[in-house]
Each structure stands twice: as structure tokens, then as C-alpha cells.
């Protein structure tokens, strides 16, 4: 218990001491994850939409596949990409391993199935009349899609936030692909892994709290921006 209190105090201290090393790690974390999310979201939402509105053979299997991919440990995704990006692998010449770009690739691979799976479930809950009304009023496919997205924005926001949570907090792929190199690819989760492997639990929890505070800010902002999210009449 003392350890928890100790950790909380440390977290506060870390946050407000303006420790440059900490902020660098925080910066890398958010830069990588936000970029990955930004890249993954548009195609994922589009695919989710196709899966919700299309009616082609194999549709259900694809949906099941994407929710299955959520059960694959992040380290396995990391490993697979490692083997591809490694010098031995097919994309070895690109020299991506142990860079932030490799981490971004890894996090895209992690965010994508979650965005598709939960995004699909949000989009399929939409009223089909929304799409039909938009189309019959002359909206282009794109505009109709954007309209639907706005109609189910709460569900999609949940998908985006869950995916963000998944990648900002994951350690397996970032560790494999980034290598946890100080000043380069050390983000909060890999830093936490390092601290805990040293037995520095308080430091680990403190870093976790820093992440929590940052994520809370983001979440509250987005939720506020998004609206009410309770069942309307």
C-alpha cells in the first residue's frame, strides 16, 4: 500500500518537475500512437462500412476474422512484423527495424482490426434509412458515408478510443519493433516494462499514472466534443 502511495507521489512529482527525459518518452508515445491511429482509421472505417452495408459472400467470415485478430498477442504481431522487417526478411533493405516508423507500422497493425471490428458493430447499428435518405437526397457516396459516420459518431468514437487505448498501452510490438532504445524508441509502456523488470515498481506505476492523466485529458476532451451518448428518443 505504501508502495502505491509512494508511486502516486512520484507520478505527481514526475509530471510537474518538468523532467525532460519523461516528456521525451511521453512525446514519443503519443507521436507514434496518434500517427498510427490517424493512418489506420480512414481505411478501417471504410472497410467497417463495407462490411456493415455490403451483402457479399464471406462478409460474416471477415467480420469474425477481424475480431479473432484481437486475440493475437501484440508480441506475436510484433514478432511477425519483425521477421518481415528484419534484415533477413523481405523488407530488410528498408532498414526500418528499431525505428519509430517500425513502431508505427506495428501499431497500425494492432489498431486496424479493433477499428474494423468495433467500428463495424457501431455502423451496423445505424438505421439503414439514414443511408437511403442521404442518397435519395442526392448525396454522393462519400457524403452519405460521412453522414452515417456522424450519425453513429458515438459508437465510432468508442472504437477509436479503444484502439487508441490498445496501442498507447501495448508493449509487445513496440518492444520488438522499436527495441526500447532510449531517446529513440522508448515509449511509456516499454519504459514501464523496463522499470518493472528492474523491480522499480513505484517508478513503473508512476509512469502508468502519467499515461493515465494524459489519456484522461484526451478522452474527456473527445467525449465532451462528441456529445451526450445516451439513448435519445
Amino acid at each position, binding site marked *: 500500500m505504501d508502495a502505491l502511495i509512494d508511486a502516486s507521489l512520484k507520478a505527481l512529482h514526475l509530471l510537474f518537475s518538468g523532467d525532460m527525459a519523461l516528456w521525451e518518452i511521453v512525446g514519443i508515445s503519443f507521436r507514434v500512437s496518434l500517427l498510427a491511429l490517424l493512418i489506420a482509421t480512414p481505411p478501417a472505417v471504410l472497410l467497417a462500412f463495407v462490411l456493415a452495408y455490403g451483402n457479399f459472400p464471406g462478409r460474416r467470415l471477415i467480420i469474425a476474422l477481424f475480431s479473432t485478430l484481437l486475440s493475437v498477442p501484440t508480441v506475436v504481431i510484433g514478432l511477425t512484423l519483425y521477421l518481415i522487417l528484419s534484415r533477413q526478411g523481405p523488407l530488410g533493405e528498408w532498414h526500418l527495424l528499431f525505428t519509430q516508423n517500425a513502431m508505427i507500422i506495428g501499431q497500425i497493425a494492432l489498431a486496424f482490426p479493433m477499428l474494423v471490428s468495433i467500428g463495424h458493430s457501431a455502423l451496423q447499428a445505424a*438505421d439503414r*434509412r*439514414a443511408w*437511403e*435518405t*442521404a*442518397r*435519395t*437526397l*442526392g*448525396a454522393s457516396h462519400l457524403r452519405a458515408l460521412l*453522414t452515417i459516420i*456522424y*450519425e453513429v459518431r458515438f459508437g465510432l468514437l468508442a472504437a477509436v478510443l479503444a484502439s487508441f487505448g490498445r496501442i498507447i498501452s501495448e508493449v509487445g510490438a513496440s518492444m520488438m519493433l522499436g527495441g526500447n532504445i532510449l531517446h529513440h524508441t522508448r515509449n511509456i509502456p516499454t519504459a514501464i516494462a523496463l522499470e518493472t523488470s528492474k523491480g522499480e515498481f513505484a517508478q513503473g506505476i508512476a509512469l502508468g499514472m502519467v499515461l493515465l492523466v494524459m489519456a484522461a485529458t484526451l478522452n474527456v476532451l473527445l467525449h465532451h466534443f462528441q456529445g451526450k451518448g445516451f439513448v*435519445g*428518443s
Partner: protein
Amino acid sequence: MSTLHFRDIHKHYARRTILAGLELCLRTGSCTLLTGENGTGKTTLLRILGGFEKPEQFAADTGHAQLNWRHYRKLLQSSVLYLHQQPYMFEGSVRDNLSFALDRSLPKAEREQRIHTALQWAGLEKIADTRAKTLSGGEYQRVALARAWLRQPRILLLDEPTANMDREARNRTISLLRQLRDDGMALLVASHDPECFSSLVNEHLNLSAGRLQTVTPASRFVNMTLLQQAS
């Protein structure tokens, strides 16, 4: 007067046949009334013509070309407007919902002018900035109709447009539809209230057992209209 001629419309759900090789003409400047018991397939027919339901068989003749279902959808969906039996409102105010139907390239002043007219016509000025999803049943119908008017399609398919409307709104609807018809729009109205539309329709068809029967033929109506115009 250009005519769109539909032939051989077949549609079934599971083992129930809803439309059994139905034939239908839509004429510019003409209003067709569609009646039929509950569940005979009026909505299904309108949704097919609106491009939202895929029929098993379908042929459309524009006078210039024979269209199959895919071509019809591609070429004509953008000139057809289908007004749902239970209209859908988008998130946002009544004003937002109306502006959705307007061409985005219109200048702002023009857009506002048109929306203003539509609001006035439908008696919606007071609730122009209310969230559309909270409107009452009749208000829903009115906004949906105003939206259709703003869109100005070539063919307007109306599914029970006056259900839930009060008397005054019905009368306004009739006069709006008359104006649209006379401007050269082709109207197809499904309704359980034939009396309400009697002053407007050029042809009254009844759907039953998957086929259309003419209740009042177009010719008689056309004469009536001419007579009315003459008088």
C-alpha cells in the same frame, strides 16, 4: 410529355411473392395514386423504383433506351426521390436537415432563401432550430416533404406522405404536390386516403395480388384536368 415505362417487376421475400410481373408508367407532369391493402407491396414497389430494393426481374423503358436494374439504378437513381413511409431525420436542426437536400454549389444567400421558403411553406419557422430528431410525428412528415421539395427531383415517390399530418398540413401538401406536378415532376403517391388526393391524381392504381389494377384510368383524369383548367 415523357414517359418512364416499367415492366416485369418481380419481387419476392423468402417464399412470398410480393410483386408478380407488375407494369407501370410514370409520366412527367402527372400524379399516380397507388392504393392497396396493408402488406400488398406498395412500399416495396416504391423502394424498388427508388433504387433501394433489388427486384428479381425488372425492365424500364425511357423511350430511348431499355434499362435493366443495374443501369436504371446508375442512370436514374439521382433523379428519383423516395420519401420513406417513416421518414428519417439526420442529427442536427430542422434547418440542417433541409439544407442537406440543397446542392452544395448554390451560393449561400440563395440557399438561405430557399430554406426560408421551405420552412414557411411547411409551417416550421418556429421549430427551425430544434433538433430534428425530437420532432413530432406530423412535423417529421412535413420536414421530409419540405426536404423533397428543396431537392427538386424529376420523379417523386411518396409513401403515405400525409399519415400523421393534421388537416391543414394535408391541404398544404396537396397544393404543394399539385404545384410540383404542374412544374413537370412525375409523382407516385402510395396512400390509404384516396379521397385526400382525389383532386390531384391523374391515375389511380390499386395493387393487389402482386399486380396493378386501374381504378380510374389516366385518360379520364386527363380530361378532368383539362376541363378544370378550361373552367
